């Protein structure tokens, strides 16, 4: 324990080691598994869509690269535009627009569920503050929880999105679909999906977490269960 310099002078030292905050965050996620699942679900869906679109674009450019007549014909029947000679196929503006919307909806969904979660935890936050927790302890707890949710949700979403795209293409076009797909590209797109997921999760929790952190203990104590 810290030595007291003056007998009764108040000091400022209140601590919450990082390991401890992670421990508390994990505990909180575990014991609120169902709520966490709902928060994470919207993230899983949006991120798997992102990952699907990205992987799909690699598959399609791979097919164009293969110069397999039948497969290319199938593609143009499905409405994909054959890229100009020498250019790589990327996502279409429409795809990007839908992707943007889905990510936006995802963030709004996260903000919504996190606001609910904060309201649910008024009592807990207030109690912690009465026990000496600082605003930033509360903020940190929420951020760690969101990061963990982001990591887990986005990993599931990223991998499943890529897997669905690969499997779907394999079924539709046969082996030519994945013959020219670079594994590194897929891994990179999954990683970028995980990163994006964490960012979205943190953006979503920011406002609710600030609200929780700024709350006065007395307000929190007044809240009902």
């Amino acid at each position: 324990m810290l030595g007291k310099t003056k007998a009764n002078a108040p000091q400022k030292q209140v601590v919450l080691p990082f390991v401890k905050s992670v421990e508390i965050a994990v505990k909180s996620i575990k014991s609120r598994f169902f709520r966490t699942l709902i928060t994470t679900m919207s993230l899983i869906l949006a991120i798997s869509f992102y990952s699907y679109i990205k992987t799909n674009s690699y598959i399609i450019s791979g097919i164009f690269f293969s110069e397999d007549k039948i497969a290319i014909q199938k593609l143009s029947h499905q409405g994909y535009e054959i890229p100009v000679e020498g250019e790589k196929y990327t996502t279409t503006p429409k795809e990007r627009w839908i992707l943007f919307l889905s990510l936006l909806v995802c963030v709004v969904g996260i903000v919504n569920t996190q606001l609910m979660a904060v309201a649910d935890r008024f009592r807990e936050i207030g109690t912690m503050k009465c026990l000496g927790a600082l605003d930033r302890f509360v903020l940190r707890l929420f951020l760690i929880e969101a990061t963990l949710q982001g990591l887990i949700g986005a990993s599931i979403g990223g991998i499943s999105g890529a897997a669905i795209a690969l499997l779907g293409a394999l079924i539709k076009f046969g082996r030519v679909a994945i013959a020219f797909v670079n594994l590194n590209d897929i891994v990179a797109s999954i990683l970028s999906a995980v990163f994006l997921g964490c960012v979205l999760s943190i953006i979503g929790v920011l406002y609710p977490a600030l609200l929780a952190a700024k709350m006065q203990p007395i307000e929190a104590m007044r809240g009902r269960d």
Partner: protein
Amino acid sequence: MMVTKDVSMESTNNIVRVSRVVKDFLMGKTKVQVLKGIDLEIKSGEYVSIMGPSGSGKTTLFNMIGGLDKPTAGSVFIDEIDISQLDAYELAWLRCRKIGYIFQTFNIIQVMTALENVTLPMIFAGVPDDAAREKGMELLDLVGLKKRFQHKPFELSGGQQQRVAVARALANDPAIILADEPTGNLDLSTGDEIIQLLKLLSQEKGVTIISATHDLKMLNVSDRVIWISDGKIEKIEKREELSISLGQIGGK
């Protein structure tokens, strides 16, 4: 009937001193004065109950003493420190080390076990894990819940949860324990046990106990009872004087 409004107090052993505290709340556009100038001194080791009907300003006064709310005018001193002058960090420190809170609704953190609840304030205070764990077990033993240290709140009865709360309040050896209607959500006999436990603590550990309460049983163990009515101190009674007025209440 005696009212201590002695201004020339011997300030040394006053753990809490409330000086001309006024508190206004805004209700829409009208200003409501909830506390109308309260003077109060509480000595170290005392067991004090604050009584009063709802709406009397009892809870507001109680929150002021706990550093949970700031007065509109006047000051609250804890250990002769004006707590309205403290910044957020110092207030957190005060809440962590000097004051232990017990609530009507127990407020045990739901996701943590009994032991984790008790050790949390020690973690905030920077106590190493092992020491915190050891002390936590000691405290749970003290409140008679040693065997249940791994139980989650939903596995404990109301009385047991309140015992955990008492143990948690004691975690950092506070000078004051603030108990807001600690028996309000408990049945008569469990409430009695909590009251006895608090009394025991005040005697053995010399902790100052301040409780806001409606519970008349609380009066039997209090050294002094402060009656609040309409934002003012109506009267302060010592225990010796109490039996008479209690008889009056019973007779009503």
